């Protein structure tokens, strides 16, 4: 299943966008033209590989192109045509399917009910399932997160939404002490099958407090799993997997990715929480990334390919625990690692990943691990400054060139 996203100016999908400034989404359109040369392999859970020439598919969705017919897929892979939707719709679809399947699944958070969710992930669900199952809470993160945990201990399966991941800082007491630890301190008597989800990451000039990357703060909490989605396909799959998991899972979404469009299968699928996703196989260098930086990496990848490099891009997806198998196999092949992340330099996911790779695969490295992270700066409001705090494609290209020298 190739990852495709909407180019700039597509009236249909972006008109409903609440958070993306379409004018600045320039990298998408560049990508869709030159993507024709790239071929993608995506490893699904269970090992089934799907190979598709992306070029054909991209033509359907490039806004300025003439409407093209669907390209015939290679090899026997996709039986049904699937359906197109945006990432937030994919999240909703996954959520709704799970709520339909199990009456104990419920949602709680600010404005998830009547308002439909600040990013529309829960739109329509309150009308369908009622105000108790899709609960509009008062503004009390610590307490309603704790309430979700108490409900989970007594048999429900709540999905707790932080309107912005940053707000979950107020729930840190409950997430650390109760979410992560209660299963252990109770000697295994109570399980906490909650999903804590919400948008985070650097948006478009949202200011410092709305642009935080909480994955670095939560990663040390024992007893939780963290996953980050980046495409509609993995968003739905990870949402479903997280809900079905008996462990507490924190699902990181990104403010700028909610309007990505992709064609996903009609049939039901659940992804594996602990696995990483092979985005682009290659030979020269392993680039590890997640969430929004995946797109910066892919954009840089085009430039690199034109320059003759062959990067292998892996979306690690599982931020805790790391999928050391996929990562390790890649390193054993390429011997060079570049980590591209949106977390801060200090103590971010990249820092942990660097440590894990050094510990496990040091002998396979031909060069030191390079980690590109955001600057240790509160995200400034000014657009230019904000751009400089986050890793940009030219930096990625330069880093690969340096690594592969």
């Amino acid at each position: 299943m190739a990852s495709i996203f909407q180019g700039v100016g597509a009236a249909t999908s972006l008109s409903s966008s609440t958070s993306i400034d379409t004018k600045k989404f320039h990298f998408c359109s560049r990508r869709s033209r030159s993507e024709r040369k790239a071929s993608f392999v995506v490893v699904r859970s269970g090992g089934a590989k799907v190979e598709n020439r992306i070029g054909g598919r991209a033509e359907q969705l490039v806004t300025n192109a003439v409407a093209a017919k669907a390209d015939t897929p290679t090899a026997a892979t996709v039986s049904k045509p699937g359906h197109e939707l945006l990432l937030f719709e994919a999240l909703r679809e996954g959520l709704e399917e799970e709520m339909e399947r199990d009456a104990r699944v419920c949602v709680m958070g600010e404005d998830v009910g009547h308002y439909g969710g600040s990013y529309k992930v829960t739109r329509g669900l309150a009308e369908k399932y009622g105000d108790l199952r899709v609960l509009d809470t008062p503004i009390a993160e610590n307490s309603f997160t704790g309430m979700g945990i108490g409900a989970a201990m007594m048999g429900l399966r709540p999905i707790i939404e932080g309107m912005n991941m940053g707000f979950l800082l107020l729930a840190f007491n409950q997430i650390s002490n109760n979410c992560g630890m209660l299963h252990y301190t109770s000697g295994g008597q109570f399980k906490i099958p909650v999903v804590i989800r919400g948008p985070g990451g650097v948006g478009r000039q949202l200011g410092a407090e709305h642009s935080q990357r909480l994955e670095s703060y939560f990663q040390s909490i024992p007893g939780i799993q963290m996953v980050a989605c980046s495409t509609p396909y993995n968003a739905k799959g990870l949402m479903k997997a997280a809900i079905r998991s008996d462990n507490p899972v924190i699902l990181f979404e990104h403010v700028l990715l909610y309007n990505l469009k992709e064609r996903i299968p009609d049939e039901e699928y659940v992804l594996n929480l602990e696995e990483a996703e092979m985005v682009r196989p290659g030979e020269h260098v392993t680039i590890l990334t997640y969430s929004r930086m995946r797109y910066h990496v892919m954009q840089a990848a085009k430039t690199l390919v034109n320059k003759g490099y062959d990067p292998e891009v892996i979306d690690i997806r599982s931020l805790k625990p790391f999928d050391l198998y996929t990562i390790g196999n890649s390193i054993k092949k390429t011997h060079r690692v570049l980590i591209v992340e949106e977390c801060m330099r200090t103590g971010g996911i990249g820092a942990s990943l660097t440590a894990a790779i050094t510990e496990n695969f040091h002998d396979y490295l031909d060069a030191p691990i390079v980690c590109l992270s955001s600057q240790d700066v509160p995200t400034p409001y000014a657009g230019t400054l904000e751009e400089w705090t986050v890793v940009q494609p030219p930096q990625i290209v330069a880093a690969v060139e340096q690594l592969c020298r």
Partner: protein
Amino acid sequence: MSLSGAKIIQPLCIRYPDMPVISDQAANCNTTSTPFLGSTRTLRRIQSVSAAQRRPASAIVAVADVVKEKKLKSNKNHLLTKEEGLEVYEDMILGRVFEDMCAQMYYRGKMFGFVHLYNGQEAVSSGFIKLLKKEDSVVSTYRDHVHALSKGVPARAVMSELFGKTTGCCRGQGGSMHMFSAEHNVLGGFAFIGEGIPVATGAAFTSKYKREVLKEADCDHVTLAFFGDGTANNGQFFECLNMAALWKLPIVFVVENNLWAIGMSHLRATSDPEIWKKGPAFGMPGVHVDGMDVLKVREVAQEAIGRARRGEGPTLVECETYRFRGHSLADPDELRDPAEKARYAARDPITALKKYLIESKLASEAELKAIEKKIDEVVEDAVEFANESPVPSRSQLLENVFADPKGFGIGPDGRYRCEDPKFTQGTAQV
């Protein structure tokens, strides 16, 4: 007794001097309050028996008031049946003897860390929890041994947990401050004050959800959240009062106001010390009750739990009570005025109930002694069991980190870490 208004039951004394009197009287006070602060006598005697012999007149007043009140209303019926009386008495004795044994065991090096004892507050635990069904839930704080015992967790399981043995109710992984029991619906045991209240609110939410969404029509399970006066200044308390009243959750918030948060007097920490008043501010009844009198507590509890069960929503109950020991076994307890301690020691809830039972002819001295003896044996047996239980082996280290151990991830060899044979031995690298 209706709780539609905020009905105040005046405590015997509510104001205490801000400055504790550093006692020249320490020596004197020790004689009156010795049984509750640690006894030098043989450890098998029930402390309250000796206290009863020295009890001054004021303790009689509390129970007598209740008896008089009731006699006016209800044709000389007793407040509780003989069966109930003995059940409550046994529960309070169990709480007291168990906690005293904990102190002993601590000083003998059988348990470590922070141990917070409940001596003096038994009326609240027994008064409330003995009215619950097994499916009802209890959430407590770090002062949770007696709540667990009242709810039905065997003394053996609690003592083993305190000793850190694998037969403890939490396999030795929780300790004094984390008593959990899925079977008896004890939802903890929390070390940080206030963090249990949202969990209790969630349990109450589940009860409502089961009834209204899952259509389990007879689900009327109630949750009790116990916490102290210090917690009543914490944000989570207020946030949960709001949510519970908003959604009419079947929960009772029970404040065990023992006037001290370690060394911080309630009066020095709180702008308006009358905690029960915070209930009506959020739209629920607030009640103040004498927490040293188990019969009064029981009466209030009946009404509050009944309210919750009928779906009428939450109640805030402030129990004025007192801990006879320090905040924890590490607390030298130097700040509290010995006169204050003596005053409350005179109102020992166990002696009060004993007096009531005997005077109203519900039980004889012999029956009560038999109960005390039985409890002695139970607690001794618990200690023996805990002593002989095994400590956790290394293989237990990683077992309960995740409900689904796949959460440890995929190792470099492609297999899930939890499939590694070294995993169960606790030596695998995670």
